[in-house]
Structures are given as C-alpha cells and as structure tokens.
C-alpha cells in the first residue's frame, strides 16, 4: 500500500470516530449521555497508559497516581486557592508532569517485574498520603467541587461544565487532544524508537539511542496525559476522591488497554467502552455481574489475545496505527 493511501485511511478513520462521538451527543438518552462523557475521560486516561504500556512496553501498576495527581492538582487548587477552571486544569497537568518526571527518574532504574512493583508502591504512597492529610484533601470523603467553581469563562463566554452537553463536549475535546497526541507520537521518530525499545532494548542502545532518556520521555508524556484525564474528571464531575488513587484505578487502565488492543491508537477507547457496556448490562439484570465481566474478559483473552483492535490489525487491517 502506498504511503499516501495509508495516511488518508488513518486520518479518515480517526476523524470519523471523532465525528461519530460528536454526533452521539445529540442522540444518546440522558443516562448514556452522562456515561459516555465519563467513558471519554477515562478513555483519555487509558490512552495515556497505552503510550507507556503499549508502545514503550513498560508495564506500570501505579498509573492511578498520575490520574490522581491531575485530579487533586486541579481540585485542591480550586478548593484552597480558588483558582478558575483553566488554571486549575493547568495545575493538574503540571502536578502530573512533575510527578511523572520524578517517578520516572526513580522507577526507570528498574525494569520488568521490579518496575511494576516500584510504580505500584509509589502509587500506594500517594494514595495513603491523600488519606493521611485529610485536613487538606478531605481524606476518605474526598472533596466536592461546587457548581459555581466549575464554570469556564473563555473570552467573555461562560461554559457551565455541569451542563450535560457542555460536559460531553469538554470530555470529547480532551479525548480528541489525547488521541491527536497519541497519533502524532506513535507516527513520530520518537514513537518508532519507543517500539524499538519495547522489542529489543539492547539493540536499540547499540543503534545509538539513549534508551533511558526515551523511556523517561514516555513516562512523562504518559503521566501527563493521564493527569489531564484526572484533572478533567475533577472539573467535569465535580468530585475528587482518594479511591481514584487506589490500586483499582491502576489496574483498570491496564484492563481497558488489553481489552481494546495495546499499541493501537483507538484500542483504549474501545476497551473502556466495551468494559463499561458489559459491566452496565450485566449489573442491570444480576447482582453477580462481576462473574459475567470475568467470563467476558477470559473469553476475550482466549480469542483476542492482542485485544480487539490488535487482533483485527494482525488479521485484516495491517494499516491501523
């Protein structure tokens, strides 16, 4: 296939996905509309995770800390310093970027299983600190961000992020940016180097690449995208809570990415969506919904070991990025 043809297909597909998501805002019933906004934000989190896990091949079990850094960075700056929405969001981003830089410098001294454990431990430290400093963070209870603090004023126009349509569009905007970042990254030279590190780090070094610096950059980009999702979650849904820093929120992005297809740009969205649909459907008719979710996951791993999109790409759609 010619390069031009492939470019056109790739951009066409991604734009079509964004267009469908835009259109869904006008047809989804209220309940699903709200759920979809949530899924879009969490899919952005999964995309952040995918950059590190899917492309660079580094399995972190502590990504909840980056999500929480963004969430608390945004939420606490509103609660304690009365910042406006844009500055609060930037504060969340900055917290995530800084935390991922520090964690990257420390955790990348290890690899493999040790890397998993070290990232998980750091995430636990953050989660427990959030509960310990309850005077600041609200502890177990978390903090509710009141509606007046969630109005975004941009150039004279006011957007109320508690309004369902505004919230959906803000979530979609975040998702689109995260998708654009992923797509640009994986098609860049840096992306190619990350894949090379995943495939054979020793060889990549011997081609003249500083693999540590490349991995560190991947941790920071991945952590910052995850933090952006966390900050958006706080602003769009008005709640900041320590459970988002817990180990569950480190495992979930891994599951979503595995389900949708690691190292595919659209896999994280698909994985998050499928997981929510299955959970939602199953829990509507049985209290044993976790059992059904479990069975679905096992079936997927058996028949789609590379995730949904990963398998499609391996069998039919080789051009998928």
């Amino acid at each position, binding site marked *: 296939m010619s390069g031009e043809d492939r470019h056109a297909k790739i951009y066409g597909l991604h734009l079509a996905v964004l267009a469908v998501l835009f259109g869904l805002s006008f047809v989804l019933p209220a309940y699903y509309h709200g759920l979809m906004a949530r899924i879009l934000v969490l899919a952005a989190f999964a995309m952040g995770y995918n950059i590190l896990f899917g492309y660079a091949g580094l399995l972190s079990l502590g990504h909840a800390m980056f999500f929480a850094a963004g969430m608390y960075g945004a939420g606490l700056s509103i609660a304690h310093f009365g910042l406006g929405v844009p500055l609060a969001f930037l504060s969340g981003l900055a917290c995530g970027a800084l935390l991922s830089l520090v964690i990257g410098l420390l955790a990348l001294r290890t690899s493999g299983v040790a890397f998993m454990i070290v990232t998980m431990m750091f995430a636990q430290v953050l989660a427990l600190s959030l509960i310990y400093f309850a005077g600041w963070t609200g502890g177990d209870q978390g903090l509710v961000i009141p509606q007046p603090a969630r109005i975004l004023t941009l150039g004279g126009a006011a957007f109320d992020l508690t309004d369902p349509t505004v919230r959906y569009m803000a979530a979609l905007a975040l998702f689109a940016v995260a998708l654009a970042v992923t797509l640009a990254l994986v098609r860049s*030279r840096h992306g*190619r*180097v990350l*894949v*090379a590190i995943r*495939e*054979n780090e*020793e*060889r*990549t*070094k*011997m*081609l*003249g*690449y*500083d*693999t540590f610096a490349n991995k560190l950059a991947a941790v920071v980009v991945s952590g910052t995208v995850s933090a952006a999702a966390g900050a958006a979650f706080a602003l769009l849904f008005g709640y900041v809570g320590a459970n988002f820093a817990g180990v569950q929120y480190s495992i979930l992005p891994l599951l979503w990415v595995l389900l949708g297809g690691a190292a595919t740009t659209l896999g994280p969205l698909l994985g998050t969506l499928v997981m929510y649909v299955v959970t939602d459907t199953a829990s509507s008719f049985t209290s044993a919904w976790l059992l059904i979710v479990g069975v679905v996951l096992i079936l997927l791993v058996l028949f789609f070991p590379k995730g949904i999109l990963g398998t499609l790409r391996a069998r039919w759609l080789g051009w998928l990025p």
Partner: protein
Amino acid sequence: MTPLLVTKGLTRRFGGLKAVDGVDFTLMPGEIRAVIGPNGAGKTTFVSMVCGRILPTSGMILFDGADITDMPPHRRVRLGIAYTFQITSVFPNLSVYDNVALPVQRTATVGQGVRASVMAALEKVGLAGRAAMQAGQLAYGHQRLLEVAMGLALKPRLLILDEPTQGLSDAEIENFVTLVRTVAEEATVLLIEHNMPLVMRLADRITVFDAGRVLAEGTPEQVRADAAVQAAYLGTGAGEAA
C-alpha cells in the same frame, strides 16, 4: 597518523575467569582487521568492551585518541562505533524497512532522505526487494545481512562484525566479501570470524586470541606461518605443519 582504536591492558574478569587478560591492541584507520581464536578465547568479550556493552575490569580504551573507557554504549555509537551482534538481534516484529530506518533516522534531518538512505543500505546487502517484509520472517542468512545493513546505516567509522557469515551460504559469503570491501573504502572494519579461508582473503591484518590474550598478530601470511598459532588454533603441532 592517530590510530582509530587503541586498548591498553584491557582486562575483564568473570568471577575467577579472566575472559580478556591485559590486551594491548592498536587498529589503524582504513584497515580490515580480523580477530580469530578458538571458542572462549575472549574475542566477543573484547569487542563488547570496545562497543560498551561490557565494562572492563581494568585497562583503557581510546577511540581516535579520546578515552572512551567509561562512555555509555549509545554515545560510542554516536562517535562512530557500530556493532553487529553475534547472535542475530534484529527487531523481528518490525518491517525490514523500519529496522534500518531506526539507525538512519537518528542522523537524518526531518523528512529528508530517510527513505533514500534506508533503501541504499538495503540495496548494498541485497535486501531492497524485501523491505516490506517482517524481519522475523526473513531467512536466517538474510537476517544476518539485515544486521549488517543496520550497522552500515549508522555510517560508522569503525564497524565491528561479530561472526557475520555464520549460517550464510557460499554464494551469500561471496556477496559478503564484496560488501565488506566496499564498506572498507569508507570505514575501518573489525571482524570476528571463524571461516579461515574468508579471513585469509579479506583481512589486511589478523589478531589471534587465545585464553584472553593476544597470541599473535600480523598479515595473513605471517599468522599462517606462526608456529604458536598453529599449535593453539589450528590444532597441529608446529613440526607437522607442512
């Protein structure tokens, strides 16, 4: 003329074993140098220290007059030391093209000439027609050639080839000889090789390793005539050699 590569008293211990033991080695620019020796003589350990994959226990490495003993491997590659692995180490899940694009893109300017340089490197080893294939699906001999193409794409000043012809057919070896001679017009070649007829034809000078030390060094004729080499390496007593 400054030697391209000098090692002084280069030593590497693995536990009680001295894999490389006080090697003094000098390589002039433009040479094709072969390193030969029995299995376990320390050849691969020696070149691994030169390219930085293994750090020496003691001793010193100079590249073009500069001390690189403690330099991390990726910076040595940037200085112009390229190493092709003894055990084929391509990226099996990437295309042949991407395998070579990786070394090319590090030095190429954005958008310019990556494709041309990749195809030129593949052309040299005769793999241009297989650019779109997955590297892991290439025949073993072709993977060896891809490995060499990746080394060439780094535009090295010193190309280290660790048993490059292992697993190649006779016809492929012929192409390889031509290839190395072309490379040697622009780069210095350090070659570890077991195929003696090939070494005798290709090398300007030969260094013989045995038990971690340099046993002999000289032109192919000198080495062939050396009694100690015959005893250690060719496995014949000096007296029987005709």
